[in-house]
């Protein structure tokens, strides 16, 4: 199969997944009757007659009197129009789309930094562990990753807070920035910075380097927690696949040709060993997104995850449904991208 044919096939398979994903979210909010839909779409500030009128309008717009399978299409139409309803939480109230616009950049920031950290920590350690098989270092790494694998994310977060934040007093562990630093700047209001909503980038745009440094320090613990929670499985997979690759004929050939060990490991073996890690990265992305909810909650980091738990605590349908749909969309898109990337890297997959 040609690469483009594979990509087209994969894109076509993307459509039923998207329909299924939206259908799950639709069923969750609609199956229990109309109350949830109305709670999601009625502006909470409206009262009295205006509210009654709006309920009528919504019933018409979403065709709430008709069977579920018909409602689905009208709901999907509204969602595609960008009408995702309202959210009311202590950290934000307004339309869901605005909330996503404000919070998503922060979540993207910590997950991207965490991904970079995962590769930066996981790949060298995994390679080291397999090359020095059964050495003391390997044993320590195996026990360490096994323990890390069993730890709940919040415990990793708390352990890092206690070690780095409380005892060593190195890094701050709450929020995105020290509020004193940004108390009187024009581009930071109500805990939200403008224009990109990522304070690290905004402060650079405005030339406030002290704020940049402080927000960088605030970024370390959440991303490190997220990375540590995931890196254990990467190390384990990489170690196993590297050991398998090192047994193969072409590696033996390389040894027999007298190629130096460094080249054999880094050039011949590593590339092939990384393939399984790449295939399983979809699982890692799912784990990162779920982990972001916990990490952002522990560190009061204003991202989608923190917003989701706030919505949960305040019985806010809009926030829960929107984040479910959003996280689902991110995950399926990431999986699509990974599949296509994988076909690029490994021609065998196309057949």
């Amino acid at each position: 199969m040609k690469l483009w044919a594979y990509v087209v096939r994969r894109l076509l398979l993307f459509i039923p997944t998207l329909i299924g994903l939206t259908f799950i979210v639709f069923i969750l909010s609609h199956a229990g009757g109309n109350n949830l839909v109305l709670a999601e779409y009625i502006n909470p500030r409206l009262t009295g007659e205006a509210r009654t009128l709006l309920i009528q309008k919504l019933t018409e717009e979403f065709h709430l009197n008709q069977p579920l399978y018909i409602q689905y299409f009208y709901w999907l139409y509204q969602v595609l129009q960008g009408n995702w309803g309202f959210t009311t939480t202590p950290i934000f109230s307004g339309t869901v789309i605005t909330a996503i616009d404000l919070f998503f950049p922060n979540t993207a920031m910590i997950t991207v930094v965490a991904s970079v950290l995962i590769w930066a920590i996981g790949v060298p350690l995994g390679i080291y562990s397999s090359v020095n098989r059964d050495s003391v270092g390997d044993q320590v790494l195996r026990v360490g990753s096994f323990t890390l694998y069993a730890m709940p994310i919040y415990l990793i977060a708390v352990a890092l807070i206690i070690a780095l934040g409380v005892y060593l007093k190195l890094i701050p562990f709450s929020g995105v920035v020290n509020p004193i630093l940004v108390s009187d700047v024009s581009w930071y209001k109500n805990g939200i910075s403008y224009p990109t909503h990522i304070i690290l980038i905004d402060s650079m745009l405005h030339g406030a380097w002290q704020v940049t440094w402080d927000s960088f320090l605030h970024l370390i613990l959440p991303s490190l927690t997220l990375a540590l929670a995931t890196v254990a499985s990467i190390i384990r997979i990489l170690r196993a696949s590297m050991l398998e690759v090192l047994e193969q004929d072409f590696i033996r050939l390389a040894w027999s040709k007298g190629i130096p060990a460094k080249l054999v490991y880094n050039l011949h073996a590593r590339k092939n060993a990384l393939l399984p890690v790449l295939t399983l990265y979809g699982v890692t992305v799912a784990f990162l997104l779920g982990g972001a909810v916990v990490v952002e909650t522990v560190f009061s980091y204003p991202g989608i995850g923190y917003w989701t738990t706030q919505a949960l605590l305040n019985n806010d349908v809009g926030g829960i449904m929107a984040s479910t749909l959003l996280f689902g969309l991110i995950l399926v898109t990431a999986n699509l991208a990974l599949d296509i990337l994988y076909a690029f890297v490994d021609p065998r997959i196309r057949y």
Partner: protein
Amino acid sequence: MLHLERMKGEEENREAKKNNESYRSGRLENLKVSVSVFIANKTALAGLLIFIIFIADALIVQFDPQLIGIQSPNLLVPNFQNPIPLPPSPEHPFGTTYPGIDLFDGIVKAIRIDLAYSFFVVAVGASIGAIVGIISAWAGGMMDEIVMRLTDIVFSIPYLILALAVGFILGRSLWHMSIALALTWWPLYARYARSQTLSTKELTFVEAAKAGGVGRGMIMFKHILPNVLPPIFIQISLDLGSIVVIFSTLAFIGFIPNADIPELGYLTSLGLNYVQTAPWAVIFPGLVITVFALAVNLLGDGLRDVIDPRRRS
């Protein structure tokens, strides 16, 4: 003539009996090897020991809480006179957490609740998953395709978030939380059971049975299931550790509304505001979960060695 045939029949009978006996002793031998393989694995043995301690804790709290001096096994006992966390002392071996709850007492009670609900999640998820997976692999064709797309779709939302949404719709309580987890967890088992069944279906002995004219149902129950179910059970035992962790994580981020329910994640979240002055209040409950998950993983690894013939030698 008839006589001769009867003699032949008796002979066959005797032969079969003999085979049966050797088969039975072979089984015993098999069990002995399994046990010795498992015992040789010291870490798995340690895992088993810890696992038994946790189970014993849960059983004692369930059936005879007075034995270890526990008064109300379903409730945490707050002490509002002295709500600030106290450090570990002879009176409170693990210290106390906000609002004045004795952590040792709380953890001992919480283990029962966490274990029971996690068992429920794994049992329900695994039964649904195993049945769906095996049937879809067995039936093949259109049915298989539909089931796999369905699991794909459930996988398209990160399970923690899906469980959160499902639980939110059902209403926030421990029961709903476990139902939500079971509903989001079964596709994993379905996939696993399916792949196990598919690979077993291709093996030579199944082909031999088919060639010998054995019926489809017979092949399923006599040949495939006995080979497919053990690995699934191992997977389940491995997953108990993950489920306990996820269960407590959901409780930690505030899934169960403020009620004095002894649950490890909830206990951890109680101490979160005091992390700077009272680290024990978060470390002990979190550590108990980690130890349990670790023990289950070690146990599962040991069991896998027992099941996998390639690792037995």
